[in-house]
C-alpha cells in the first residue's frame, strides 16, 4: 500500500515539472528579450517609441514608423473584417440551415489553416495586381478628396496589406462570434419571436446585446493576430520607413521590420533595437490577449 502511494507522488511530481516549464519559458522569453535589447533601451529610453528616424548607418533608431504602420494596417483590416466576419457569423448561426452551417464552418477552418506565407504569395501575384489596376484607381477617383486615397498607386502598400490581414483574421472573428451567438439561450430568442419580432429584430435586440462582450473579445483577439502577423504583411506592405496618411503608400510594420532586417543586422545596437521592437510586440500581444480573455 505504501509503495503505491509513493509511486503516485513521484508521478505527480514528475508531471508538475511540465507546467512549471511553461511558466519558466514565458518568463525566460520576457527576460531574454529585455536583456538582449538593453543596449537600445539604455541608449534611447522611452523616446524609442516616439522617434521617427530609422537609420542603421548613423545608428539612430526609433520605432514610430513601425508602430504607426502596424496600428494603421491593423485598424483598416478590422474595418474590413468586422462587418464581413460578424455578418457571416450571424448568417451561419441564425439563418443558414444546419447542413450549410457544418460545411461552412469546416471551410472557414480551412481558411484559418492556410499558412501566412501562402497568403503572402497569393497577395503578391493575385491581390496586388487587382489593387493596382482596379481597386485603387477606383478609390482614388471617387474618394480621392480624402487624404487616405491620394498619392501614387503602386499596388503594394498599406491598403493591400490591410486587405490580406482582413482575410486572415476573418476566420477568427467568425468562429468566436458564431460560438458566442450559439451560446445565447434559446428561451431568450423564443421570447423575442413570441413578441412578434422578425429574425433580424431578434438578432439585434437579444443576440447582439447578449453576446456583445464575447464578440468584442473575439475582435480584440483578431486585432492581436493582425498586429503580430508577419509574413504576408512583409511581402505586401512595401517595407518603406515613412509615415504617410495615404493608404496607397508603402509602409512598414513592427513584425515586418524584424523579419526583413534581423538576419542582416550586423551591428550590436541595430540588433538590439530590432529586439526591442520584438519586445514591444510581445508586450502588446500580452496586453491584447489578457484583455480578450477577460471579455470572452
Amino acid at each position, binding site marked *: 500500500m505504501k509503495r503505491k502511494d509513493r509511486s503516485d507522488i513521484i508521478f505527480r511530481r514528475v508531471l508538475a515539472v511540465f507546467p512549471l516549464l511553461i511558466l519558466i519559458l*514565458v518568463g525566460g522569453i520576457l527576460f531574454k528579450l529585455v536583456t538582449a535589447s538593453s543596449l537600445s533601451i539604455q541608449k534611447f529610453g522611452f523616446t524609442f517609441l516616439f522617434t521617427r528616424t530609422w537609420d542603421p548607418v548613423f545608428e539612430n533608431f526609433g520605432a514610430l514608423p513601425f508602430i504607426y504602420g502596424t496600428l494603421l494596417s491593423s485598424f483598416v483590416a478590422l474595418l474590413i473584417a468586422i462587418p464581413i466576419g460578424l455578418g457571416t457569423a450571424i*448568417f451561419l448561426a441564425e439563418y443558414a440551415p444546419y447542413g450549410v452551417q457544418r460545411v461552412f464552418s469546416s471551410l472557414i477552418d480551412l481558411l484559418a489553416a492556410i499558412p501566412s506565407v501562402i497568403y*503572402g504569395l497569393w497577395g503578391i501575384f493575385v491581390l496586388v495586381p487587382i489593387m493596382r489596376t482596379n481597386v485603387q484607381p477606383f478609390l482614388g477617383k471617387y474618394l480621392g478628396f480624402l487624404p487616405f486615397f491620394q498619392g501614387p498607386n503602386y499596388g503594394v502598400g498599406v491598403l493591400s496589406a490591410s486587405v490580406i490581414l482582413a482575410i486572415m483574421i476573418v476566420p477568427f472573428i467568425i468562429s*468566436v462570434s458564431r460560438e458566442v451567438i450559439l451560446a445565447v439561450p434559446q428561451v431568450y430568442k423564443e421570447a423575442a419571436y413570441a413578441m412578434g419580432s422578425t429574425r433580424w429584430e431578434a438578432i439585434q435586440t437579444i443576440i447582439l446585446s447578449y453576446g456583445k462582450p464575447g464578440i468584442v473579445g473575439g475582435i480584440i483577439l483578431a486585432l492581436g493576430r493582425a498586429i503580430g502577423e508577419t509574413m504576408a504583411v512583409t511581402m505586401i506592405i512595401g517595407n518603406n520607413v515613412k509615415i504617410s496618411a495615404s493608404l496607397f503608400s508603402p509602409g512598414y510594420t513592427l513584425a515586418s521590420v*524584424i523579419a526583413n532586417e534581423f538576419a542582416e543586422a550586423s551591428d550590436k545596437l541595430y540588433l538590439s533595437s530590432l529586439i526591442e521592437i520584438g519586445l514591444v510586440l510581445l508586450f502588446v500581444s500580452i496586453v491584447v490577449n489578457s484583455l480578450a480573455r477577460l471579455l470572452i
Partner: protein
Amino acid sequence: MSLPDRKRSKMDAHTISKDLMVEDHSINELIGSAFQQTRQGRFIADKIIVTCLSLCAMCVLFFLYSILWHLLSQGISSLNLEFLTHLPKPVGEDGGGMANAIVGSLILLGIAVLVGVPIGLGSGIYLSEYANQRFAQIVRFVTDVMNGIPSIVYGIFAYTVFVVPLKSFSAFSGGIALGIMMIPMITRTTESFIRMVPVHLREAGLALGTPKWRVIVDIVVPSSLGGIVTGIMVSLARVAGETAPLLFTAFGNRFWHSSLFQPIAALPLQIFSYAISPFDDWHRQAWAGALVLIMIVFIMNFSAVYFVSRQNQFITGKITNKRMRGMKN
C-alpha cells in the same frame, strides 16, 4: 468560449426586458425611417438584411476559392517529380526542385514534436488531474497568452538562446522555436479532452485498487487519445506553415543540410524567398512549393478531424477502446 455562468445568471429576465425596451426604440428609428412601420415593411427589412449577411458569407467563400484555385492552377503545372526530388538549381538556371526544403521541413517538425509534445502532454495531464484551481488558472492564462504571442517573437527568443551562443543558424534552434509554439495548443486540448473522460471509467479503475497514476496512464490517457492526437495534429499543422520563427533560426539553405547544427532549408522559407525574387521560374516554383505545403497542412487538419470524430464516438459509447477491452486488471 461561451459566456461564463456567472454572467449568464446575472442577466436575468429583468435586464433582458430592459434591453429590449431600449433597443426597440432604436429599431423603430432604424427601420421606421426606411419603411412604414408595417408588418410587411419589417419583413422586407429582414429579407434585405439576410441578403446582406449571405453576401458577407459569399465574400468569405470567394476568398477561399480564389486562394485555393490559384494554388491549384499555378502550382500543378510546376509540380513534377523533379520538383520533389531535386535540389534548387543555381540562380539563372531553370528547373530544379525543393527536395531539401521538403525534407528540411519534416526534420524541423520532428524536432518540434520532440519539444512540444512531452511538455504539452505532461502539462495537460497535470492540469486536469492534479493541479489546484489557482495554479491551473495561472497556467491556463499563460498558455492563452503564449498562443497570442507573435511567431516572430519566438524566433527572436530562439535566436538569442541558441543561435548566438552556438554562433550558427541551425535546424535545432528552428525546431525548438516551432516546438515552443506547439505547447499551448497541445496543453489546452489535452486538458479539455482528458476532462471529458467519463467518471465511471476512472472509478472502475480505482475500485480495482489501481493507483491513480496507473489509472491515468492505462485508462484516462488511452480513452482520450483521439482528442490528444487531434490537438497535436492541429498544432503541427499550424507550425508547419510558420515562416517567421525560422527566418533567423533555421535560416534556409540551398543545399542538403550537413548536420542539425547547421542551417537547414524549410518549405515556407523557400516559398518566401522565391516569391519575393525577381525570377519567373522561381515564382512558378514558389507556387508549386505552396501547393505541397498546403497539402501537408490540410492532410494534418483532416486527420485531426478524423481523430476528433473517433474521440467523440468513443465518449458517446459508440466504439470502445481496444486496449481497455483487453485489460485484465
